[in-house]
């Protein structure tokens, strides 16, 4: 039995309606994301300075960009920050997740304590850590007052070490989140496999290194993708913690782009640095999304 046939106009409407509903969002994304990417890409090839200019200038901005000491410092800092941030967060997250997975009493209290920094703004995190790391007010001062006179911890004032303080604060903020990801991964492992391995007499160590950790591969990948893209986008934390200093010691690509575009009137160079940042993220995200979407159908 067929339901009563709707009229032709209604049928057409019914056919198009879903696409119609989707279209405002699609329009916004196409314009504000992809249109803007093209626009910024175009600007990066022009001689724009304080205001956008549409005079094409070839790859002049890119040549200028790669000749800038500040840009090279920013990239070097991103490499140091990115590698340490991803590595420490992953290791710490995994270790905490495994420790928490040992039928801990009070897990319900500990887990939110590890995770709450993720709910904070990087500006708040930066404010707290700027103070905590300040030699005259924070940890160093406290240790002196507690009688450890020779204790020094002045990385935040030290050009060579300041970038590591950004790592410290960023790890504090994100490692609990990575822990939560690994914990969910651990809880998803089939307990039958573990029981079988235990019956075979596998030690606890080899249980984890041979069976559990290899099974967490997808979580490692997700954590890597999330952390890498957070690292490349890192901006707020540096602004709040060191404001790029001392000198330019904690400059990152995101702060470089902002200052060249909006305060140094080098919009073309700023645009070209944004294009490089996009390319870095795309090289990580696109393969990831491609494989994720393909697997599912």
């Amino acid at each position: 039995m067929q339901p009563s046939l709707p009229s032709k106009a209604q049928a057409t409407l019914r056919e198009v309606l879903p696409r119609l509903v989707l279209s405002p969002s699609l329009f916004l994304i196409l314009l504000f994301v992809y249109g803007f990417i093209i626009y910024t890409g175009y600007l990066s090839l022009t001689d724009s300075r304080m205001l956008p200019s549409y005079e094409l200038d070839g790859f002049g901005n890119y040549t200028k960009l790669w000749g800038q000491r500040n840009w090279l410092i920013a990239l070097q800092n991103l490499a140091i920050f990115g590698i340490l941030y991803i590595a420490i967060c992953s290791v710490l997250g995994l270790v905490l997740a495994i420790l928490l997975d040992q039928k801990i009493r009070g897990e319900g209290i500990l887990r939110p304590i590890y995770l709450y920094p993720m709910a904070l703004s990087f500006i708040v995190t930066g404010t707290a850590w700027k103070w905590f790391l300040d030699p005259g007010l924070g940890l160093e001062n406290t240790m002196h007052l507690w009688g450890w006179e020779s204790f020094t911890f002045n990385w935040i004032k030290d050009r060579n070490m300041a970038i590591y303080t950004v790592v410290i604060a960023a790890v504090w903020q994100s490692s609990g989140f990575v822990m939560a990801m690994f914990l969910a991964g651990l809880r998803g492992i089939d307990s039958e496999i573990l029981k079988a391995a235990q019956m075979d007499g596998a030690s606890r160590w080899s249980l984890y290194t041979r069976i559990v950790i290899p099974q967490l591969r997808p979580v490692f990948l997700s954590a890597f993708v999330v952390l890498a893209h957070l690292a490349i986008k890192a901006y707020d934390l540096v602004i709040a913690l060191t404001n790029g200093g001392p000198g330019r010691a904690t400059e990152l690509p995101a702060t470089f782009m902002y200052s060249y575009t909006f305060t140094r009137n080098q919009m073309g160079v700023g645009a070209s640095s944004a294009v490089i940042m996009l390319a870095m993220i795309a090289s990580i995200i696109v393969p990831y999304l491609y494989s994720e979407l393909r697997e599912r159908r």
Partner: protein
Amino acid sequence: MSRSTQPSFGIEKLLRAALYSVLILFAVYYLLPLFVMLVNSVKTLDEIRGGNMMSLPEVFTFEPWLVAWSKAQIGVEPTGLSPYFINSIMMVVPAVTISTALGALNGYVLTKWRFPGDKIIFGLMLFACFIPFQIVLIPMARVLGIIGMAGTTSGLVLVHVVYGLGFTTLFFRNYYAAFPDELIKAAKMDGAGFWRTFTRILLPSSGPIIVVTVIWQFTNIWNDFLFGASFADFDSMPMTVALNNLVSSSTGVKEYNVHFAGAVLAALPTLVVYVVSGRYFVRGLMAGAVKG
């Protein structure tokens, strides 16, 4: 291969104790900055300068909180952070509502009304979640100027809706993908149209994903700094930008206790949301990270 022997009871107990100590040590590490902020926000400035950041206040004062809320100099007038707190609320509520509603509809269409090319559209939306926002700052500033929204809260709402769409669509798409197609088919057979199917069948069981999405969007938009710093003016500045101005202002005496009170005020809404519905918060983070 030698087989590991069962550890004796004593060693097991020792290991257990070590395990708990390590876990508690980490809890201290994560709590310490919050503790320092809270403790020093109720001390007098003299006590902070001369004393230990870890020590409890000798004289308890609520004054820094009052100053941070209603007296501190941030803009031209000494208004405290309160107007900016309100700015943030005026920005967050519509932005979260609109982006969540659009995300729900998008997720519905992309899973239950599939059409050729829908996967490409979803891919385009998904990639939009991850772009570095530096790539859109320059054109966005111009477009906001052209449409007369530069320096306004509605301009910020627009920005946050656009760049939140990818995530909200992703959340709802993944959630609705797991929703049985048979129910939808049955509804369609019964003559239910596009809207009826959505409001009668999908929406009533969307509670959890709505909560997840709202929390995710709320946290992200409330905590945003880059867009606020780029597109807001003194009257529409959100809380994070105001806090940064307060903390990093180089004029006058640095009132650390006021800074801390301000930082806690800026953190309070997301912390409250997190404490009240932490379970969903975690789920939201996971949904954003692990697809499938």
